[in-house]
C-alpha cells in the first residue's frame, strides 16, 4: 500500500511540476502533447492521474506528520482544476465553458469534503476558528475579512455592471435545422429521404456498404484503403465520382476549407468564424448527406432564421455548380475525412 501511495505521490509531484512549468513557460508548453484523435480521453486520463497523485501526496504528507488541512486540500484542488483548464488545454476554452466546469468542480469539491461528518468538520474548522476568533491571529483575520469581503463583492458587482466595449457574446446555431425539402435547379429534394445518387458500386447500383468500405482510414494519417484509390483511372462507380468530386472541390472549395478539409484554407483566416472544419467529429459526421447538399446549394445567405447571426460567407453554390457536381463534392468530403454520413436505418 505504501509503495503504491509513494508511486502516486511521485506522479503527483511530477504532474504538478510539469503543469507549473508549462504554465510559467519554464518548460515548453508542448512537453506533453495532446495527441490528435485521443485528446478528449487523454484529458480525462490526465486529470485522473493528478487525482491519484494528490491521493499519494496526501498519504505521504500524513505519514510524515505534515498533513495538509482538509480545507486547503479542497481549495487547492479547485485552484488546480482552474489552472489546468486555463493553461493546459489548447486552443483556449471559452470562458462560458470554463465557468461551467469551474462550477462543477466547486460542487464536487463540496461533495467530497462534506461526504461524511468527520471530513466536513475538518473542512469547516478553519472557517469556524476565524469566526470564533479565539486567538489574536484569527481575530485579525476576521477583521481583514470583514473589510475585504465587502470590497471584493462590491468590486465584482461594479465590474459586472460597468458598460463594456467588448463584442457581445454570440449564441450561434452552428447546425440550424434544415427545411423538410429544398428546391435546387428546379427540382425539389426531400431532405429526410433523398440519397446521394453517386454513392454507387462499380455496377452502378446504390450501395452504402460499398462506399463506406472505401473511405480513407480515420486518424492522423488518413490513409487510403488498398485498391481504393480514386485517382486510379480503372476505378468505376463510387471511387470515380469521388475523384470527380475532388476535382470540383479543389477548383472551388479548398481556398477556404483547406487542402485537408480542416477549415484552414488560403483565405480562411480572413473570416471569423473560419470555415467549417470537416475533419472535426462535430460537423459533417453528425449530419445527413442531404443536409450538406442543402447547405452547399443555398450557402450562408440561405440559412434560416434560427441560424442568426448568419455568420457565414459561403456562396450559394447552386448558382455556380450543377446538382450533380454538388452531390459529387459532398461524396468527396465524406471520403476524404473518413466519416460516414448519418443515416436513419
Amino acid at each position, binding site marked *: 500500500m505504501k509503495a503504491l501511495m509513494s508511486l502516486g505521490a511521485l506522479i503527483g509531484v511530477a504532474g504538478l511540476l510539469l503543469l507549473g512549468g508549462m504554465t510559467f513557460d519554464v518548460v515548453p508548453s508542448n512537453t506533453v502533447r495532446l495527441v490528435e484523435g485521443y485528446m478528449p480521453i487523454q484529458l*480525462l486520463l490526465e486529470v485522473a492521474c493528478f487525482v491519484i497523485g494528490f491521493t499519494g501526496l496526501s498519504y505521504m504528507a500524513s505519514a510524515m506528520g505534515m498533513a495538509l488541512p482538509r480545507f486547503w486540500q479542497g481549495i487547492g484542488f479547485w485552484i488546480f482544476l482552474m489552472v489546468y483548464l486555463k493553461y493546459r488545454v489548447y*486552443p483556449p476554452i471559452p470562458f462560458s465553458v470554463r465557468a461551467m466546469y469551474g462550477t462543477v468542480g466547486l460542487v*464536487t469539491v463540496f461533495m467530497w469534503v462534506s461526504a*461524511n461528518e468527520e471530513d466536513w468538520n475538518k473542512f469547516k474548522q478553519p472557517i469556524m476558528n476565524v469566526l470564533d476568533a479565539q486567538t489574536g491571529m484569527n481575530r485579525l483575520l476576521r477583521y481583514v475579512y470583514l473589510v475585504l469581503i465587502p470590497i471584493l463583492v462590491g468590486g465584482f458587482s461594479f465590474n459586472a455592471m460597468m458598460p463594456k466595449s467588448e463584442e457581445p457574446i454570440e449564441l450561434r446555431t452552428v447546425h440550424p435545422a434544415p427545411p*423538410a425539402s429544398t428546391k435546387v435547379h428546379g427540382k425539389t429534394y426531400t*431532405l429526410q429521404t433523398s440519397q446521394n445518387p453517386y454513392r454507387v458500386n462499380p455496377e452502378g447500383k446504390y450501395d452504402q456498404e460499398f462506399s463506406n468500405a472505401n473511405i480513407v482510414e480515420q486518424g492522423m494519417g488518413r490513409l487510403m484503403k488498398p485498391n481504393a484509390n480514386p485517382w486510379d483511372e480503372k476505378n468505376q462507380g463510387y471511387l470515380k465520382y469521388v475523384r470527380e468530386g475532388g476535382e470540383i472541390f479543389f477548383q472551388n472549395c479548398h481556398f477556404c476549407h483547406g487542402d485537408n478539409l480542416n477549415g484552414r484554407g488560403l483565405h480562411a483566416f480572413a473570416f471569423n468564424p473560419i470555415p467549417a472544419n470537416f475533419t472535426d467529429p462535430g460537423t459533417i459526421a453528425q449530419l445527413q448527406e442531404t443536409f450538406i447538399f442543402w447547405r452547399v446549394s443555398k450557402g450562408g445567405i440561405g440559412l434560416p432564421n434560427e441560424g442568426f447571426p448568419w455568420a457565414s460567407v459561403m456562396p450559394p453554390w447552386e448558382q455556380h455548380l450543377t446538382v450533380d457536381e454538388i452531390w459529387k463534392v459532398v461524396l468527396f468530403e465524406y471520403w476524404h475525412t473518413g466519416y460516414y454520413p448519418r443515416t436513419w436505418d
Partner: protein
Amino acid sequence: MGLLAGKRIFSIVALCMMVGLLLLPVVVALPSLAIGEETHAGDAAKKDGDKVEKGRDVYYKTEGIVSGAPAPKTTDGVKDYPRYNFESRVLLWFANQQHLYYGSFVLAVPIFCMIIEFMGVVTKDKALAKRYDQLAYDFIKISLTAYSLTAILGGILIFTFLTLYPSFFSYLSGIFRPVMHIYALMFVAESGTLYIYYYGWDKMREGFLKWIHLSMSVVLNVIGTLLMFLANSWIGFMMSPAGVDEQGRYLGNIWHVIHTALWNPLNLHRILGNMAFGGGVVAAYAAYKFLASKTDEDRAHYDWMGYIAMALGVAFLIPLPFAGYWLMREVYAYRQQMGITLMGGLLAWLFIIQATMIGILFLCTNYYLWQAMGRMRGAEKYQRYIKYLVFLLACGFVVFITPHTMVMTPAELKAMGGQQHPVLGNFGVMSAKNGGINVIITTTVLSFVWYMRGNKVSTVSWAKFGNIFMGVFFACAYFNIIFLAVYGYYIPANVRVGLSVPQVATTLSCLFFMFALNSFMMKGAKQMGAIEWGKISARSQYALIMLATAFTWMMALMGYIRSSVRLFWHVNEIMRDNSPWAYTHTVGFAANMISANVLFFWITILFVFWLGSLTAKKVPVESKAGIPGSVPQPAPSH
C-alpha cells in the same frame, strides 16, 4: 362473522363498481363513436351528392373518407386570437404547467401508495406493516387535496384555451371529440375510485379485505394511467399529426389520430417522469418535516419517509434517460429537422440546461446516499472511497454537459480557431454523452450497493469471491461504457445509435445483477451496527429538497422544449400559428418563466401539505425493532 362477511361483500361490490367505472367510458363511448362517424360521413356524402371524398393520411399514408373540416387558416385578430393586453401564450403556458404538475403528482402518488401498501401487506413485521400502511394513507390523503386542485387547474386550462385560442381549440376538439368524452368519463371513474379507495381504507384494514383494497389501488392506477395516455394523444397529435390529410381533415380513424408517431414514447417517458417527480416531491415534504421536527421520534419517522420516497423516485429516475433517448430517437425518425432543432439547433442550449439538471439529480441522489451511510455504524469503511466516486461522477457530468455549440465572444471564437473546439468539441456529441450519463448511473448504482451493505459483513462462504466478482464486474462495466463511447467516433452514425443498447444493457446489468448478488451475499449477514434513523445530517435533507426542485424545474423545461419544437405551428405542418407570438422565446425569458412556474407550484403544494397536516391523526405505533420511532435497528426496508 356476519359483520366480516358483510364487509367482504361490500368490498367486492366496491371493487366491481370500480372495474365497472373503468369500463364505463369505453362501453358508453363505443356506440356513440360508431354513430358519430357514420352520421358525419353520411352528412358529408349527402352534401356532395352521394360522392364520398377521400383523403390520404399524412402519417400512415392510408386512404380514408374525409369526415371533418380542414384546419382553420387563422389570422391575427380578435376572431382567432382574442387577447388581453399581454401575451396570451404566457397565460396558457402557466395554466398548462400548473395543471401538469398537479396532474403528475396525483397520478404518481397512487402508484406509490400501491407499492407501499403492497410492501405493508407482504412484510412479516406487523409494526413495520402498520407503519407502511400509515405512510400510504398519508400519501393518499395529500393527493386527495391535490386532486381537487388538479381538476380546478384543468378547468382553468380549458377556459384559457376556449377564450384565448378558440379556433385552435375548436379544431382540436373537433378531431378529438370522442376521445375528450371518454377522457371526461374516465375522470369521473378516477374520482369515484379514488374516493372509495380513500374512504374505504379503515374498513378494509385486515386480511382478505386488505387485498381487495390493494386491488382497488391497481384499478385506480390503471384508470389514472389511461387518462394520461389519452391526454398524451393530444400533444402527440400536435407534434406529429396522424389520422388527418394534408389539409387537416379527419379521416374517420380515431386510432390513427391517437396512435401518432410519438404517442408511445411520450407515454413511457411521462409515466417514469411522473413517478420520479412524485418521489421527489414527497421526499422534499419529508425533508421539510425532518428539518422542522422537534423530537427524535419525528425526525426518525421523516428520515425514513424521505428515504423511502427518494428510493422510489430514483428507481424510476434511473430508466428515465433511456426512455428519453427512445423519445428523441423517434423524434429524429419522424422529422429530422425537428430532431436537429431540439438537439443541435435552436433549442440545443436548453438541452444543455436539461443535461445539467439530470446531472444535478444524480449528484443529489449520490450525496444523499453518502450522507445516509453516516447513520449506520460500520459504513466508515466505504466512506473513504467516496472521493473516487465523486471523481467518476464529475467526469461523467462534465462530459454530459459540454455544449456542442459553445457560447463565446467573437474574440474567443477567433482564438479558438473555428467554431469547434478540437478537444472539448468531442464531448459535445451523442457518443460521448451516452458514455457520460451511463457512467453517472452506474456510479449511482455503486453508491446504492455500498449503502445497502454499509453496516453489514457477508457471512456466506463465498463472500471473498463475491466481493472480487462485484469489483471486477463494475470495473468491466465502466471499461465497456467508456470504450463504446470512444468507439462510437469511428463507426457510421446508424451503428453508433445502436451502440447505446450495449451501453444501457451494461448499466442495467450492474443494476439488476449487482443488486441481486448483493442481496444474496447479505442474507444472514453480520450486523456491524444499527441504522440510527433520524441521525442524519441536515445537508442530506437539503439534498432531497434540491432533488425535488431540480425535478420540477426540469419538468417545466422539458415541457417547454417539447412544445416549442413545433416552432410556428399549432399542429405541426397542418395548422399554422398566426398569432403575434409565433416565435421562440429567448433562453432567458424561458428560464424566468420556468422558475416562476416552479416557485408557484412549491408555494401551492406547501399549502396542500399544510391542509393535509390539519387533519393529521396520530396513529400509535407499537415499538418494534427496525423501524423509526423505536430503538434503532438495521433497516429492513432494503
